[in-house]
C-alpha cells in the first residue's frame, strides 16, 4: 500500500481553492442595478421575434423596441424577471427564450451536462484507481527465469551495458 505524502496533495488543494474562488467571483453580483440595466439584462435573454439570431437587447427592430418598452413597464408594475420571461414564453413559445427555463423538460439543458461531467469524472477516477492497482503487464515464467539468471550471474555477459 502506498502512503500519499502531504506534498502530493498540495497541488490538488491549490487547484480546488482556485476553482472555488473563481466560481465565487464569477457568480458575485455587481451591486445594485438601475432599471435600464435590468431591462437590458432581461432583454438579453429574449430572442427578437422578427430578427434572426439577435436578442431583444441588441436589435433595433420595432418588435425589439416594443419588447424593451414593455419590459420596463412590467418592471415598473413590480413584475420579476422570471414573470416577464414567462409572459413572453406564454405568448411566443419557449423558443423565444435564449436561456432555457430551469423547470420542465427545458431544465434537461442544465441537468444533462452536469450528469455527463459527473459520470465522466467517476469513470476517470475508476480508471486511475485501476491503473494504479497494477493493471499493467504481468511477468511470465520466461521473464522470471531471465531475471533469475541475471541475478545469479551479475558479472556475466551484458553487464555494464
Amino acid at each position, binding site marked *: 500500500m502506498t502512503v500519499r505524502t502531504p506534498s502530493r496533495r498540495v497541488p490538488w488543494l491549490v487547484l480546488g481553492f482556485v476553482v472555488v474562488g473563481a466560481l465565487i467571483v464569477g457568480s458575485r453580483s455587481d451591486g445594485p442595478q438601475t432599471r435600464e440595466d435590468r431591462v437590458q439584462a432581461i432583454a438579453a435573454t429574449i430572442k427578437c*421575434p422578427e430578427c434572426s439570431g439577435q436578442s431583444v437587447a441588441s436589435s433595433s427592430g*420595432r*418588435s425589439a423596441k*416594443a419588447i424593451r*418598452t414593455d419590459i420596463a413597464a412590467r418592471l415598473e408594475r413590480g413584475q420579476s424577471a422570471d414573470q416577464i420571461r414567462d409572459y413572453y*414564453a406564454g*405568448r*411566443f*413559445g419557449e423558443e423565444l427564450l435564449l436561456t432555457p427555463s430551469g423547470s420542465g423538460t427545458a431544465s434537461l439543458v442544465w441537468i444533462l451536462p452536469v450528469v455527463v461531467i459527473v459520470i465522466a469524472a467517476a469513470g476517470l477516477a475508476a480508471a486511475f484507481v485501476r491503473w494504479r492497482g497494477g493493471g499493467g503487464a504481468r511477468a511470465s515464467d520466461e521473464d522470471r527465469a531471465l531475471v533469475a539468471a541475471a541475478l545469479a550471474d551479475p558479472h556475466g555477459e551484458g553487464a555494464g551495458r
Partner: protein
Amino acid sequence: MRRSHVALISASVVGVVVALLVVVLATRDPATEKVRDSPIVGKTAPALRAKAIDGSAFDLETYGGEFVLVNFFATWCVPCRQEHADLVELDEGGAANVVSVVYQDSPETVQAFLAEQGGDWPVLEDPSGQITLDYGVSKIPESYLIAPGGTVVAKFVRGVRADTVTDVIDRFR
C-alpha cells in the same frame, strides 16, 4: 470490462440517441403546415381595444358570440396581399368577422389598399406594437381565429385560405 462489452454499450447508446432524434424529427409539424400551434391557442384571446384607422374605437368584446379572425398584415408584405381575397370571402360570406391589425405600415397606405382591393372591416392601428406582442406575432401574415366563447382556437401563418379557416370553424360549431 471486456472490449466487446464496451463496444456493445457504446453502440447501444448511439443507437438510442439516433432513434430519439428520428422520433423527435418525425413528429414535428412540416414547414408547409399553415395551421400552427401557438401558446395562446386554447386560451382566452388577449384583450383587443384599439383605435381603427378610420378613427373609430374598437373592442373585441363587442363580438361575443361570433367567430372573429384577427389578422396581422402590412401592404408591403406580398403573402398579405395574396391572402386578401380570402379574407374578403370569409368576411363577406359571413363565416367569420375579420379584424385586421396594421403591422409597421401607414394608415394612409392601408386605406388606399383597401379602397382598391376591397375589405370593409375594422382595421386597427398598433403604433406601440403592444397588440403584436400580446398575440405573440413573429412574422406576418399571421391570423388568429377566436371562437364565440372568446377562446383562440387556431393560428394561421403564411397567409390564410378561406376553405382552411371554414374547415376549422366547422369543427368548432
